[in-house]
């Protein structure tokens, strides 16, 4: 059979039209299937564009107040306490740091000695531009688009520790050993532990936010920790930021941390 040039163009044009049409129909069907999944957000959960925290150091009356926040965090998340003689293996979610370690570059010679010697409460900053997420080869750590929380997917973590090298705040810890024998307190049986060979850090209590409650440390802080949506002008954290002078850790790096520190706040404010 032979076809002339005109017939060939007719057939080719018809086939192309058919192909294009089919592709759009297939795409529409696929979209339909994907969007009507059986998975739903919990309506009880707290929602925000971007979660943030303000730490008002003046509202901590004593070291015990700070310890209370740390204990609440560690209890909630089954954080192990490794041998203090082995600080390289320490697992840190919420911990204290001296002024010059928390704010290097700001350690001026004549600074109010009161502040110089405060134990600053530090945690993962849940950066807007998180370097840990950029370096993760498996996307085990990722920034949740819905609310800006920098999350860990322990199922994916391969323990390469790139994120620990990338994080300028030292907020990530590696499980060199099985952490379970080092959990001294009663286990929180509603939250998993971690396993050997994964990196962990503060999660802004995403599992509590999903249930509609504030993070564990915020709950026991007596107002020293303000938490909320930084995009919402009426939120607790914005009220603190609007009325106080605040600083962030290493802002010059361009990571845009979400944790703010109130300097010189009024006590019992």
């Amino acid at each position, binding site marked *: 059979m032979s076809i002339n040039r005109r017939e060939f163009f007719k057939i080719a044009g018809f086939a192309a039209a058919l192909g294009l049409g089919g592709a759009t129909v297939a795409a529409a069907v696929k979209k339909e299937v994907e969007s009507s999944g059986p998975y*739903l957000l919990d309506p009880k959960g707290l929602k925000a564009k971007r979660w943030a925290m303000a730490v008002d150091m003046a509202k901590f009356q004593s070291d015990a107040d700070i310890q209370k926040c740390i204990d609440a965090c560690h209890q909630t998340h089954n954080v192990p306490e490794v041998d203090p003689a082995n600080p390289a293996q320490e697992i840190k979610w919420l911990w204290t740091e001296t002024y010059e370690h928390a704010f290097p570059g700001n350690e001026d010679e004549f600074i109010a000695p009161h502040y110089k010697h405060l134990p600053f409460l530090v945690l993962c900053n849940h950066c807007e531009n998180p370097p840990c997420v950029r370096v993760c080869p498996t996307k085990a750590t990722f920034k*949740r688009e819905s609310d800006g929380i920098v999350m860990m997917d322990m*199922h994916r973590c391969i323990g390469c520790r790139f994120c620990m090298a990338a994080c300028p705040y030292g907020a990530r810890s590696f499980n060199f050993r099985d952490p379970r024998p080092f959990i001294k307190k009663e286990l929180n049986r*509603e939250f*998993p532990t*971690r396993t050997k060979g994964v990196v962990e850090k503060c999660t802004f209590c*995403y599992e509590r936010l*999903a249930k509609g409650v504030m993070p564990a440390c915020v709950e026991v802080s007596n107002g020293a920790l303000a938490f909320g949506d930084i995009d919402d002008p009426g939120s607790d954290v914005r009220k603190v930021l609007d009325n106080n002078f605040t600083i962030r850790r290493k802002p010059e790096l361009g990571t845009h941390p979400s944790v703010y520190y109130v300097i010189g706040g009024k006590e019992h404010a």
Partner: protein
Amino acid sequence: MYDSGKILAGLIIFIVIATLPFTLNLGKAVAKPSPSIDTPAINQMAKKQCVESKDYMKTTHMQMLNNWRDEVVREGNRLYVAADGKEYNMSLQNTCMHCHSNKSKFCDECHNYVAVKPYCWDCHIAPKEGA
């Protein structure tokens, strides 16, 4: 054939060793796994119904757990709408194991039989089993 004695003896020894797993277990029936649903939470249920039908759970629970994991961890969705319209909190530790609080008699029963070792329990805490 040179050294036929040595070669034949070697061959016979090889065949005996290679078939040892079969010959040793010959005639021995391994007990069929029978996962138990005898737990306080399940016994209290009027209708003993899992999230989906028994057949679906039997064949598809691993894919389902994978999907649940991805939805919860990566998408933040925590509610699963089952085929019968009921809503469940997607959580291995808090939902599945709340009813199936007998991990050694439920999960392990089949997993040991087919020699699969899911690493769920490296992190997730298995429920306390009575005595």
